[in-house]
């Protein structure tokens, strides 16, 4: 399983905030960019969206492992 999370505006556009996806043993390891397409969020991840894997920023093409938590983060506005 891979856990996917969306936040703030992204969550509201998609209409969901958390999903878990099964990974088949024979498929090649997925990446955040691949998940974005697979979930129907769009063809490519927009440049302003950042990706976190296991609660740390990560690259769009980072190979994912079973159990990973992948989050797509719209532009940050903290502080």
């Amino acid at each position, binding site marked *: 399983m891979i856990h996917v999370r969306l936040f703030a505006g992204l969550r509201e556009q998609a209409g969901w905030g958390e999903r878990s996806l099964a990974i088949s043993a024979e498929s090649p390891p997925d990446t955040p960019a691949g998940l974005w397409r697979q979930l129907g969020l769009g063809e490519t991840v927009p440049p302003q969206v950042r990706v*976190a894997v296991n609660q*740390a*920023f990560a690259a769009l093409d980072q190979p994912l492992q079973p159990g990973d938590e992948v*989050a797509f*983060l*719209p*532009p940050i*506005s903290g*502080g």
Partner: protein
Amino acid sequence: MAEAHRPGLVLRLHPEAFEPLVALAEWQQQLTAGGSEAPPAEAHFIGRVRGRSASGAALEALELEHYPGMTEAQITRLATAIAEHHGLLALRVDHRVGRVLPGEAIVLVAVAADRRGPAQRGGQELLEALKHDAPFWKREWSNGVGRWVEGNTAY
């Protein structure tokens, strides 16, 4: 301090209103606990919610969403890197989450160092890091309508 070479970060996420001066008093007490000498230099920053939205409308509230777990991990990473770079003695971050009203504090950043330069620069860098690299999202509520804030207010 017992751990003078491992600068400590105190991090608090507040779902309810917090009082920055109370947080600072608690932090200062911790720094001098056990008779340790008070740090020669302390820099603080307090940010509060404005009464107007970015478009100028009267603001009812600011809603602060975050990514529980990553927020704490990410602020710890950011603070540790800045503390090592500037040789800081101690850091404290208080950040609101949830619904914040105009005039209420959103953020407190406090940094202790041996000299004023590292304290001031370290505090500024930590605040910018929170604004750009910690997973918080603001939504402004005006006239019952919420609008996600894209990016930060001008420095």
